């Protein structure tokens, strides 16, 4: 009896080793299904992102600041990526850019008591914050630059956020796709903790100059505790919402609609 069990066990071990080996040899086409957005296994794996968000919200103080660097750490221009020139395909944006954004207005709408509009000059005349921070692209690279702008929390306080608001949604001039696919405007969302964070600014200055078109002129929102795709460029409207399932593909941002996690803090 003891011998019989041992033999079976031997076979079982052999089988296990063989199947593990074939999994390795088959290469990783085996797991390509994980790229399917609605696949139940992927849905399950994505729950880890909610865990990461909850863990970081518990661990990172709401007011904890991102590292700020010395002037000497600015060793290069801010590397532009993503959309770098909406003048080429957005006529409305081209008109604004051609007149140095004199007619630009930043609108604050949605779940607020008093919707607001600010010209670029008005924003530039408000108390500002300047910070030298590290921009981390989701691809893995980092770049240090000096950003100047109005704390978003100040603008939100002026508009008086209604209690039912849960997220801030940024609508941008730049558009992805077009051609064969329907054009998708860039948009992003932050929770209110990030929106009211002291380093979250509507930046209009970069390295002591006007924010260039390649980096998001006239206004780019900085969220220094998150990756680059959480820093929307060419922002024209800030909308307070209680959810984002009806916008775009419902994931809370252009890149989130294309498979990136919503929180973007890691």
């Amino acid at each position, binding site marked *: 009896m*003891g011998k019989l069990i041992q*033999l079976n*066990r*031997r076979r079982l*071990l052999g089988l*296990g*080793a063989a199947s593990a080996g074939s999994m390795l040899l088959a*290469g*990783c*086409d085996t*797991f*390509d299904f*994980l*790229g399917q957005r609605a696949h139940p296994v*992927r849905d399950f*794996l*994505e*729950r*880890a*992102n909610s*865990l*990461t968000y909850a863990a*970081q919200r518990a*661990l*990172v*103080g709401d007011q*904890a*600041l*991102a*590292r700020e*660097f010395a002037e000497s*750490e600015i*060793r*290069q*221009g801010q*590397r532009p990526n993503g959309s770098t020139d909406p003048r080429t395909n957005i006529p409305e944006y081209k008109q604004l850019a051609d007149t140095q954004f004199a007619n630009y207005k930043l609108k604050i709408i949605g779940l607020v008591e008093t919707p607001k509009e600010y010209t670029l000059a008005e924003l530039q005349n408000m108390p500002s914050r300047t910070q030298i921070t*590290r921009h*981390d*692209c*989701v*691809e*893995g*690279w*980092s*770049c*240090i630059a000096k950003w100047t702008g109005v704390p978003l929390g100040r603008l939100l306080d002026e508009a008086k956020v209604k209690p039912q608001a849960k997220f801030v949604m940024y609508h941008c001039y730049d558009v992805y796709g077009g051609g064969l696919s329907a054009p998708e405007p860039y948009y992003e969302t932050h929770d209110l903790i990030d929106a009211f964070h002291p380093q979250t600014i509507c930046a209009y200055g970069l390295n002591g100059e006007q924010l260039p078109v390649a980096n998001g002129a006239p206004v780019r929102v900085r969220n*220094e*505790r*998150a*990756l680059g795709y959480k820093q929307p460029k060419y922002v024209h409207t800030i909308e307070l919402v209680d959810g984002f399932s009806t916008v775009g593909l419902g994931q809370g941002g252009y*890149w989130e609609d*294309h*498979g*990136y*996690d919503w*929180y973007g*803090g*890691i």
Partner: protein
Amino acid sequence: MTDQAMDRAMAEEKSAKPKGPLIYRQSIFTRVTHWVWAIAMFFLLLSGLQIWNAHPALYIGQQSGFEFDNAILRIGAENTDAGPRGFTTVFGQKFDTTGVLGMSDLRGNPNFIGFPAWSTIPSFRDLGTGRVVHFFFAWMLVGALAVWLVAGLLNRHIWRDIILKPRDLRDLPKDIVDHITFRFHHGRSYTPLQKVAYFGVFVVLFPLIILTGLTMSPGINAAWPWLLDLFGGRQTARTIHFVAMLLLVGFFVVHIIMVVLAGPINELRSMITGYYRTSPGTEPDENKKDRTNG
């Protein structure tokens, strides 16, 4: 192998070598966490290479030099007189790595990518999915480590088998000689070299790869800015994360070789059922679930 052949093989084995007792060596916590890690490391490695392919370069410092050079490793493809080739540049030394790094074959077509398609999950370029897979299994790795740490401290596995003690250091030279000459001792606790290997994984590499991973998180940077100082910047942390990965792959290769050399059936059994056939002369422990006759 037929049953008869197997019986014969076992009988020969029995007559050739006297057996020591079958001891209960690996607790349920060690066995379960071992296999959780085996699965997690597989997915972490392949999704990690996917993520790395999004920017196939490593730097030293806080940031990535685009207008200055602080890269120590770069993988890419270039046009040459002989057509496109894949290149890997390490510390300024450039190597043609066509076929594996920088440019590889994908169903008969050139694929301009850092690590080849067969080494990434998914096989096609998909950073978003790579991140989903990576962070899921990162949580599994950390969760299993927490379970192992608590259980291992309580059942003394960590003290007995992982922590190097003066006696282990004294016996280390002899153990190295034994390993070189393929004389393996199957005892109750690990040999000095085994302890060095597992100490390296649990006390050095696992904490290092987890902490450097966290150092890459802008969110964690705000909570624990000291991580940036500890590792010398986010990009250095990313480089260390990569080197720790290479060392863990090295551990895996040695680990598998040792399992095969030391007797794969016995080693696998101990990591599945907990029971391990020891060398003759090992005393069974009355207080443990050891069997004198297996």
